[in-house]
């Protein structure tokens, strides 16, 4: 693989960029691999990458029904943070965030991680107490956060309306090393690195069946023929239920639409990511200048990648209250993605009832930020059968009632 650098770009410029090679190869599937990963989104590609990098497992195929990074990896609002409350969540998201710090250099692909800071506004006394709790938990978890006062919020975000009137800003949970990254680049960077390690990233390859013998997985059927494997990782976000059914088990998952929108680009006016959970909206400004906005999810099962417009209305309304200056900006584009929701809204990274078949799913609305950490942990789980990052996220936890519930900060009003 040719390394990317300013010198490489200059060298190529001399010949009008006609010498660049493919970022990833386009191989035909082999008959057998040590590991097959179904799904070439961020999580699947990262899993493959760390299987190779950390465990030397390189005879790996990543099968993708459509185009790599074409699911939720390329449809989210790109927020990266790890200010979670519960230990297992904080562990995997902080591992992820710390990997993002060096990911551009690690992959030799600029994924533009921008640790500009993430703040979560506290707009009720109850939220204040919730975020104070999170700040205490984070301190013990090794996650750098602190609770900041309204004047500091205003200093960091001059465009915010601190006084309400409906919900005054009472403070915020501030994670200075949270931020954003270029979502597509994360998938592309991992794909290029996997390909460079000799792994096969195979696009337009749809899995139609999971083959098993004696309770163990032995391969998959695809639209490009049968492929054997020793181990199988299912990492397909919105279609996890369909794949699980092929593998003969059920998942505690429902798929719903989550929507986002961007404004037309304007000159930089907001340097941090702001999440306002009381009014259900969050906003950041991309490096292109667009205000990137996300809100709530539909409450019903939906596979259309289109959501209902009233969610957009509610989100925009909430954000105009929070940032009044956006009123005369214009919405350029809205879109939807299908997200997997588990019973406790936390992901599943788990062994399955089918031996040597593993599943990584249920990231809900928070998958992008977790990509490197999820890949790191899931690779360890697949390679060694256990991983401290994943073990609490077992798909069997629902039976025991051992939930990882992050909605607790929201709680209920009294």
């Amino acid at each position, binding site marked *: 693989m040719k390394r990317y650098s300013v010198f490489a770009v200059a060298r190529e410029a001399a010949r009008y960029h006609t010498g660049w090679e493919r970022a990833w190869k386009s191989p035909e599937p082999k008959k057998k691999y040590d590991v097959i990963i179904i799904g070439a989104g961020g999580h699947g590609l990262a899993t493959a990458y760390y299987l190779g990098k950390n465990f030397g497992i390189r005879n790996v195929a990543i099968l993708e029904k459509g185009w790599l990074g074409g699911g939720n990896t390329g449809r989210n609002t790109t927020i990266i943070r790890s200010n979670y409350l519960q230990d297992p969540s904080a562990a995997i998201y902080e591992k992820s965030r710390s990997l993002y710090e060096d990911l551009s250099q690690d992959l030799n692909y600029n994924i533009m991680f921008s640790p500009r800071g993430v703040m979560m506004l506290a707009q009720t006394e109850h939220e204040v107490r919730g975020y104070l709790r999170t700040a205490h938990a984070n301190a013990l978890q090794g996650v750098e956060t602190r609770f900041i006062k309204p004047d500091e919020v205003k200093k960091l975000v001059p465009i915010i309306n601190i006084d309400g009137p409906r919900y005054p800003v009472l403070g915020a949970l501030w994670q200075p090393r949270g931020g954003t990254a270029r979502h597509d680049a994360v998938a592309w960077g991992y794909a290029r690195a996997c390909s460079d390690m000799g792994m096969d990233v195979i696009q337009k390859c749809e899995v139609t069946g999971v083959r098993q013998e004696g309770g163990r997985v032995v391969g998959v059927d695809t639209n490009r023929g049968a492929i054997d494997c020793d181990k199988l990782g299912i990492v397909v976000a919105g*279609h996890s*239920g*369909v794949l699980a059914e092929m593998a003969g088990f*059920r*998942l*505690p*998952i*429902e*798929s719903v639409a989550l929507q986002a929108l961007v404004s037309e680009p304007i000159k930089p006016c907001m340097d941090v990511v702001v999440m306002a959970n009381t009014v259900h909206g969050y906003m950041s400004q991309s490096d292109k200048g667009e205000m990137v906005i996300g809100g709530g999810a*539909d*409450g*019903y*099962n*939906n*596979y*259309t990648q289109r959501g*209902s*417009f*009233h969610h957009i209305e509610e989100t925009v309304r909430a954000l105009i209250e929070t940032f009044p200056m956006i009123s005369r900006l214009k919405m350029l584009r809205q879109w939807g993605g299908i997200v997997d929701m*588990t*019973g406790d809204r936390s992901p599943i990274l788990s062994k399955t009832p089918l031996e040597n078949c593993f599943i990584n799913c249920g990231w809900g609305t928070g998958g992008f930020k977790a990509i490197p950490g999820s890949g790191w942990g899931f690779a360890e789980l697949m390679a060694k059968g256990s991983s401290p990052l994943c073990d609490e996220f077992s798909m069997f936890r*629902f*039976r025991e009632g051992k939930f990882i519930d992050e909605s607790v900060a929201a709680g209920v009003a009294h």
Partner: protein
Amino acid sequence: MLILECPYCGLHADETELAPGGEAHLKRFGPGSSDDDFEGYLFMRENPKGVHFERWRHANGCGKWFHAARDTNTLEVFGTYSAQTTEPPQDIKDKISARRPGWTWREFA
């Protein structure tokens, strides 16, 4: 933006009047049931890409819960019906079979 007909008040209710309530026709398992049954009842929800039966409440209307048969992939609505039943009425099943040949009740379970 769904519209569902509330079978109680007869209104074609906009989605903003409705509150979704998840999978319909759940069989409740209480004390004495196995871990398997209880987990299945509470968490293993149907999530088909296609015909789905679900509960809705006409929350900003008459307040009644009702059931809808809907395709999660096309959002086609085959019909709505009373919540006071353990399985879809025959006319709804017939309609689904007509629109989705080969479909049978609970085939996806």
